[in-house]
């Protein structure tokens, strides 16, 4: 059975959505149901890899579905940045499903069918975002992603979940309706098109103030990129079960946000125009402030997931900053960081979930000495932390390197300083955790008996992503090639 690349492109979006039917149908047979999810994610991965191979051979793959409004198409195409995002998302969906099986079953969660269904819809939307060939298509799937992740965030159904869900939905929908939609329509009005084009869609003689305002609207409107002050939804979403936090808030939702930022900066504005806009500098400082402030807040969090959430806000700031630097190194650093941060953060969240399920601990102060009972988990935590900090032998090294180069290229010395200070802060809020786990005595409880390692599926998933962090350091070529190709088109 050999499908054309175009068919595979369409199927990569439709398949997860169709899988929901299978998941709902097998809802009462958990093993079969999980089989549907895993099967679908394997097929999806196969499609995405085939598309990647096609892209490498220089094929141009695009599909046009439907003209929704006169002049506004729903259409998809494959380009390096989208390919990067799709590869990460589809691979990590598979891994997260394995993790989730372990987590949901040992935690004996309710409504698992609803969980896997919404997960599938969310991944389908992510594919839609990754392969969208114009802003209109991207916006549609962006909104579908927000709505399909709401039931996942409020999974627990408790008052706390409801409140968290309110903040989540409130911020994401408000920013997208008020700012993002306005930015899109303004772009449509000023530039006449919403297609992603290398070099941007605006004429070179566009009014810089107008374009600058539109840029501000975009950055504030893409709430999923969690730029302050619209970042509150991320910590609020931590009320979700950990597999949700892991895939969605380390990978899918947040990466959809910064991916959109990158796409807008590179393919709507174009880095040449970006450098000339009056508001770019202000937004760069905003991103820098986001990086620093989020790191500082992270240091003060005792709840592990909250600390990781603020860390994510900070790391997303890196990517936004890299995009706004409007240099090739900046764009490359941002794109690579999408991948390296995804692997690093998802590992950290996997560990947090494992600790919750196996040891029933969520506060960092209670995790001293845990290394003895959960050595693999804490070792993975350590390696993933290194990736976030950006030191060898983990992939984060390369992305941080290019981001620093980007700040130098753009002569943004303050931002360079911010990046370096932030790395120090990363050390401060991440490394103590594995350090205390291994080297501190277990002061608080002597109930050493009873805490075992994480459930096996979760453990396997954890290890795979940790290895991924290391592989990204040792063998960064594919990532590097993709990142480089973004500006080359």
């Amino acid at each position, binding site marked *: 059975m050999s499908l054309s690349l175009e068919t595979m492109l369409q199927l990569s979006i439709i398949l997860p959505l169709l899988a929901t039917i299978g998941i709902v149908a097998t809802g009462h047979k958990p093993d079969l149901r999980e089989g549907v999810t895993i099967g679908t994610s394997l097929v999806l991965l196969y499609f995405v890899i085939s598309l990647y191979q096609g892209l490498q051979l220089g094929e141009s793959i695009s599909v046009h579905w439907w003209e*929704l*409004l006169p002049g506004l198409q729903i259409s998809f195409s494959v380009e390096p940045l989208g390919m990067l995002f799709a590869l990460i998302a589809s691979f990590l969906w598979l891994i997260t499903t394995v993790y989730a099986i372990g987590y949901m079953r040992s935690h004996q969660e309710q409504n698992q069918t609803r969980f896997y269904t919404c997960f599938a819809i969310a991944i389908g939307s992510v594919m839609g975002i990754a392969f969208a060939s114009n802003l209109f298509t991207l916006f*549609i799937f962006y909104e579908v992603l927000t709505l399909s992740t709401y039931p996942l965030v409020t999974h627990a159904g408790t*008052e706390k979940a409801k409140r968290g869900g*309110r903040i989540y939905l409130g911020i994401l929908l408000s920013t997208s*309706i*008020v700012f993002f939609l306005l930015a899109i329509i303004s772009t449509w*009005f000023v530039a006449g098109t919403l297609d992603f084009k290398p070099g941007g869609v605006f004429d070179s003689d566009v009014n810089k103030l107008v374009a600058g305002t539109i840029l501000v609207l975009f950055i504030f409107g893409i709430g999923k990129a969690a730029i302050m002050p619209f970042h509150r939804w991320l910590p609020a979403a931590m009320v979700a079960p950990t597999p949700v936090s892991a895939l969605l808030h380390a990978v899918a939702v947040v990466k959809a946000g910064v991916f959109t930022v990158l796409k807008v900066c590179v393919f709507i504005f174009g880095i040449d125009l970006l450098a000339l806009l009056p508001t770019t500098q202000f937004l760069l400082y905003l991103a820098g402030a986001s990086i620093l402030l989020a790191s500082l807040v992270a240091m003060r969090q005792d709840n592990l997931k909250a600390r990781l959430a603020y860390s994510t806000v900070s790391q997303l700031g890196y990517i936004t900053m890299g995009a706004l630097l409007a240099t090739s190194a900046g764009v490359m650093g941002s794109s690579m960081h999408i991948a390296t941060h995804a692997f690093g953060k998802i590992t950290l969240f996997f560990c947090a979930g494992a600790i919750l399920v196996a040891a029933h601990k969520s506060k960092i102060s209670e995790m001293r000495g845990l290394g003895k009972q959960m050595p693999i988990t804490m070792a993975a935590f350590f390696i993933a932390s290194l990736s976030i900090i950006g030191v060898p032998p983990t992939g984060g090294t390369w992305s941080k390197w290019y981001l620093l180069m980007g700040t130098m290229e753009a002569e943004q010395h303050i931002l360079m300083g911010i990046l370096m200070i932030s790395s120090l802060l990363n050390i401060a809020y991440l490394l103590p955790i594995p350090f205390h786990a291994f080297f501190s005595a277990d002061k608080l409880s002597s109930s050493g008996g009873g805490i075992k390692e994480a459930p096996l599926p979760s453990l396997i998933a954890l290890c795979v992503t940790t290895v991924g962090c290391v592989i990204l350091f040792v063998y960064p070529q594919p990532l590097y090639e993709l990142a480089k190709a973004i500006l080359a088109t």
Partner: protein
Amino acid sequence: MLAHLPILQVIVPLMAAPLCLFLTRPRLAWLFALIVSGLAFVISSLLLQQVMTSGTIIYELGGWDAPWGIEYRIDQLNAFLLLIISAISTVVLFAADTSIRQEIPAEKHTLFYVLYLLSLAAMLGIVATGDAFNVFVFLEISSLSAYALIALGKDRRALWASYQYLVMGTIGATFILIGIGLMYQMTGTLNMEDLSIRLPEVEQTRTVFTAFAFVIVGICLKLAMFPLHLWLPNAYAYAPSIVTAFFAATATKVAIYLLIRFTFSVYGFSFSFTHIPLQMLFVVLGLAGIFAASVAAIYQTNIKLLFAYSSIAQIGYMIVGFSVGTVAGLTATLLHVFNHALMKAALFLALGAVMYRIGGVRLTQFHGLGRQMPLTMAAIVMGGLSLIGVPLTVGFVSKWYLIVALIEKGWWPVALLILFGSLLAIVYVWRIVEAAYFKPVLAGTEIIKEAPLSFLIPIWTLVLANIYFGIDTRLSVQVAKAASQSLFGVSP
């Protein structure tokens, strides 16, 4: 037969209405009404087809030439509205038999269908006619049948709401009558086409200004434009559910039609928009309506009242689109007429289903409803998403066009305010979602079953239409644009 379609559109339901009295069994009356409404829908589709291909249809009643005789003039604008009214009427009527069994005493069922068909005939008449006084007559027929229909509601507040509506509605209709009288005095004609030719000569007189003012104020009262909206919330909330579903989707749309018809076709664009500060007035009142009504909706505990206030807000959107005064703005308004009809009909029918099973629509009664009536609640969520303007629903299409029209005109602050207004919709829709899905069922309530098929079929037809027309926008956009363009082309 085909040549007489314009008059048949009105005559068929009009004649059918008293015939219902001969049908002793309410079931028969329902079937009869459904068939008649379906016929009206078929006629309106044929008319729309004809208009889109060959242009305006002119039909002279009794063969008398205009302006001495009454003529029916069907152009793209009318045809669009005829389609909407008859389509919604048919779909809503599907659930009527089941719904009124719980809400109206059995001996009044046949009378319900009589009034319903009268109301339908009258609304079709208002839209189809080309004579100003004919408009008044049909307007009063539709209003009187509306007062009676609303008074059929179970709660005694329906009587009070109907009375208040009667007083305010009669004042509004009388204002329109005064306006028509003044216009007749100055031009000697009642035919709208003829008026548009003769009015420019006498435009500058105080009489014509006064006529315009009376007509516009009268229409705005029927339209429930802020601040003349006070009759609407109670009237919609306490009327029988089928009545609310029908009127929420059609009555105010007819008033918008009248507004557009009088300002564009009769008085002409230049008079209406430039000699009188209509634009500024309507933008301000439209925005005020959006915000005041949306905020009021947020605090309601009666869900029907909540969506009634939401309707007032949506009318505000239509008025803002109208006030932009460009083809794009008018297209946005007409699109929203179509889309809002779909949204609100679905929502109020779903509320009717809830009313049928539970007997009330307080927010507290919605607790846990997501599990007990999943299909109905899902329909309400979809309707709510459409109200918010999520892509792939009709609500998004209207919003897109409205914002584009505003930006084209350069009214960025208004565009921003419109978008902020949509956020308020998120708040009041989400209150219902949270109550239905997050709260446990109140202790002591019986097990509630899902709504019966007679409800589910029309509700989900409308919901799927919401989604379908949100994706395949060709019909609505083409007709709205054609209507808008012809209105701008025709008026001086």
